[in-house]
């Protein structure tokens, strides 16, 4: 009896497989998977489009859409077109919680991509019950090391290295290049800054004075001038590390201009605060921008000799008309390319669990513009795990500091900062992934 039942089941399975193969092209493969049909994959992003943060980050969703539209025009992902639904959270935590919940409950998206901000996304993640709903939370734009906690954020994949990793690389750069000079840290007084402070401490770097910490949104010209005036009393050419957003970097550099202190210091802006286009747009003089050192994991958006940059710039011209190609656009398109590879790696029968498993298994091999390796694995949700040190020129171009590109990799903990021989994967033909 049991045997007969098993045989019948085997026959039934065969029949279903055969039938399934016949109708695969016409029926939704995963009707039960939210946001996925036979012809469409719905993705969502909550990020600032308006408000002060929208000035810098407002380009992100549009750039991602542009890349997805490019992919859609070239066949989509296994025949499915990608739709990106963008909601404006103004960089406000409560609004982010609301909009992310809307993306899940109202828009019924398959996954989130490129969510932006620590305060915003930490609140949104819980409010929208992303963990309970098993919603893939892909390539988030924050370096807060708290998001690496897979117990708390089981569906989250970062794309940025952690701020702690960045601090460790900067500490090494200061040690290698500015030994003997005083050094100061002006940092945002939140996870951004505290992660950074912890990273410097782990690296064994001690600043000459206690870090100057300021709450987000509180750095004014007067406060910047007061801080720089105090620091200028220290002899030599101290290194000032700015661990904040680009608008704050601009405020501080403009204060230095006003005080004629631009050449008094060696400026080292963290990766989040060193977008040259934004600095120039906010009125920082090109001569001040010239020489600012930064850390980056991406190529410079102005380097059109880089094949990835060139490809993304071309896509931007065609699919994102009227938008200036810059580091934000580059990073956003790069995340979109990672997303497409993740979707492909998950296979034709797309599921939420499947795409997360696929990134864990294959994410470290995805092609990307990043000049440092991706660190995805079953135990790591950190994207890029290193930096290269760049220096801006008057045009706002980022060039390798010292004239030679050196890739550093490290972790968020006590691991050493090491020089890497990493060579990034060749860009897929025409920037269209074909991985599986």
């Amino acid at each position, binding site marked *: 009896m049991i045997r007969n039942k098993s045989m019948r089941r085997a026959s039934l399975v065969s029949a279903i497989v055969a039938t399934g193969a016949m109708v695969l092209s016409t029926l939704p493969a995963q009707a039960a998977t939210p946001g996925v049909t036979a012809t469409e994959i719905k993705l969502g992003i909550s990020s600032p489009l308006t408000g002060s943060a929208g000035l810098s980050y407002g380009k992100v969703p549009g750039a991602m859409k542009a890349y997805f539209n490019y992919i859609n025009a070239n066949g989509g992902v296994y025949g499915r077109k990608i739709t990106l639904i963008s909601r404006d959270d103004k960089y406000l935590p409560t609004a982010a919680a609301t909009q992310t919940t809307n993306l899940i409950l109202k828009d019924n998206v398959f996954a989130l991509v490129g969510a932006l901000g620590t305060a915003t996304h930490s609140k949104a993640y819980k409010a929208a019950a992303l963990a309970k709903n098993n919603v893939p939370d892909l390539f988030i734009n924050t370096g807060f090391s708290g998001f690496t906690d897979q117990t708390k954020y089981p569906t989250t994949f970062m794309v940025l290295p952690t701020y702690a990793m960045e601090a460790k690389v900067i500490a090494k750069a200061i040690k290698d290049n500015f030994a003997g000079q005083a050094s100061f840290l002006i940092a945002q007084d939140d*996870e951004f800054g505290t992660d950074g402070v912890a990273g410097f401490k782990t690296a064994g770097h001690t600043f000459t004075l206690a870090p100057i910490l300021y709450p987000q*949104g509180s750095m004014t010209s007067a406060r910047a001038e007061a801080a720089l005036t105090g620091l200028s009393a220290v002899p030599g050419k101290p290194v000032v590390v700015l661990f904040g957003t680009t608008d704050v970097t601009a405020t501080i550099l403009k204060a230095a201009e006003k005080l004629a202190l631009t050449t008094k210091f060696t400026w080292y802006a963290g990766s989040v605060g060193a977008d040259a286009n934004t600095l120039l747009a906010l009125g920082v003089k090109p001569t001040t921008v010239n020489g600012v050192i930064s850390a980056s994991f991406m190529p410079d958006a102005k380097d059109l000799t880089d094949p990835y940059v060139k490809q993304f710039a071309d896509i931007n011209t065609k699919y994102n008309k009227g938008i200036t190609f810059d580091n934000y656009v580059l990073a956003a398109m790069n995340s979109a390319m990672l997303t497409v590879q993740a979707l492909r790696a998950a296979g034709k029968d797309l599921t939420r669990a499947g795409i997360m498993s696929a990134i864990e298994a294959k994410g470290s091999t995805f092609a990307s513009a990043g000049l440092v390796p991706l660190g995805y694995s079953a135990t790591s949700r950190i994207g890029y795990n290193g930096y290269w040190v760049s220096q801006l020129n008057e045009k706002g171009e980022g060039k390798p500091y010292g004239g030679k590109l050196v890739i550093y990799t490290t972790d968020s903990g006590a691991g050493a900062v090491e020089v890497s021989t990493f060579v990034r994967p060749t860009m897929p033909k025409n920037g269209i992934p074909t991985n599986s």
Partner: protein
Amino acid sequence: MKNLKLKKGLVALTSAALVAVFAVAIPSTASAASTCANTGFIDGAKYVAIEKCTGTDDNGSQFEIRMPAKFNGTLFVYSHGYRYNVNLPAIPVVEPKGSRVDNSAAVSPSEDVAQALLAQGFALAGAGAQRQGWNQNEGVDAAIQVMQIAKDKYAKISKVVTWGNSVGGLTAQAVAEQYPGAVDAVAPMCISDATQAVLDKANGFLWGFKQLFNPAIKGTNYSAGQAGYVEMLTDLGTVLTTLQALQAAITVNPVSPAWPATSTVPDALKAIPVRSAVLLLGLINGIPTQSNTYDASSGPAGASETTFGLVISPALAVLENGAQAAILAVMANYDAEMTYGGIVFDNSKTNYATRLGDDAVTFRAGLTGQSGITGMLSYLSALNPAAPRVTANAEAVAKMNSVYQLQGKIEVPTITISATADHIASAGAAQYLANKYEAAVSNGDAKPGKLLNIWNKPSDEYTEFSSAGAPVTPTVATNGTGHCNYTTSQILAVAKLAASAAKTGKLPSNSAVKAAIKNEPNLFVDPTITPPLLKFYQ
């Protein structure tokens, strides 16, 4: 009282046995004094004829029953929310005209709701418990009594739904749990948590308010008799004047408002904008960061849009919500201390850093960074003698907690509605019930598939600004904020779902729920959404 004790003793029996015994155990109340009269009202184009009966039950609680001439067989038994148990003189904001203890019966959340249900053929009943204030036991007894009086009088009653607002929601749920078989469905609205958890929230806010802004507030340990009554009234006045000082300071300088003159915190702490202290008090006590006026999601157009939404709006929301929380704390805590015979609030071991939790990440900018958080929490630390903690009277607490505590033993369809920004009855109270229910199901103490939580949220953005950029308080209270601030149509949607469930014995289907709330953009259902529990449990 003897009969009531007998009734409570039945709780341990099986449900089936209870149904049989219950009818015997509850004394016939046909003898309860009641007066009935035929009356009615116009509903649209039709006249709705009803019989209205009022009276006083065996315990002295006033009751009212309204039976429509065209009765559909289902009776709604309503329990009202918390009412003051002392007379109040005219107090601005709190009771501008003064008030007397109100023991009148209530049959529904509003007259509009009552007429709408009567017009649809539902009968209504409700009571005004013989003692106001914290009166869960009295409320349960009053609900049971009026239910039985109605059943005795109208044999055609075939289904009973218990429902209520706030403490009344708690009462309705307690009726269902304590008397299984007595009701066919339950609809707790803006359900209150247990007294201890609610007072922990309100008193926690008031305690911090006192330590940071005005140590003249007594807050706890009110004297007995007239002296205590005067202390309570004095506290109300002190809280109100302190709130006004805070409001004025923030109005003058929203970004860096000054601390009130009554504050005795060190100058170093006063370097932090006082709005951050207000926000911190809200966050560590579970006061919502959205309120009637402030959505924490928008700002006046222009340069300060993001700053307002990020750091000012959440603090102002807490202030707007916290004003009522602080007043409730004074009134309700005074009531609890008098009722239970001593201090019932205890924060002697409370770790406020733990209670801040992830909000430290979310609201770090509004809290003036990690440095601001550290400074404020240090001041509120149990190690700081300048901010003395409160230790409760164990006997008083035991007495307070001797009332029935919800077990989640849900046997009949139960439909809750809770607002995510209700500053008095947190949505976490409904979540607490859901958690208890889940555990009860796992333990075999409750039937699966009997609880539906409907959430009421505010619109995505709702703060209005004047042409000068000043926030404007809405003339109509913002739905999704405020206490039990539901629209008539929202309440009726819940009532209809509950009535339907009472008939079938099952929760309405997903499609039926969707249909019921399809015109209610601020209502949603999602079992994965889990509002935070009250801080008392965290």
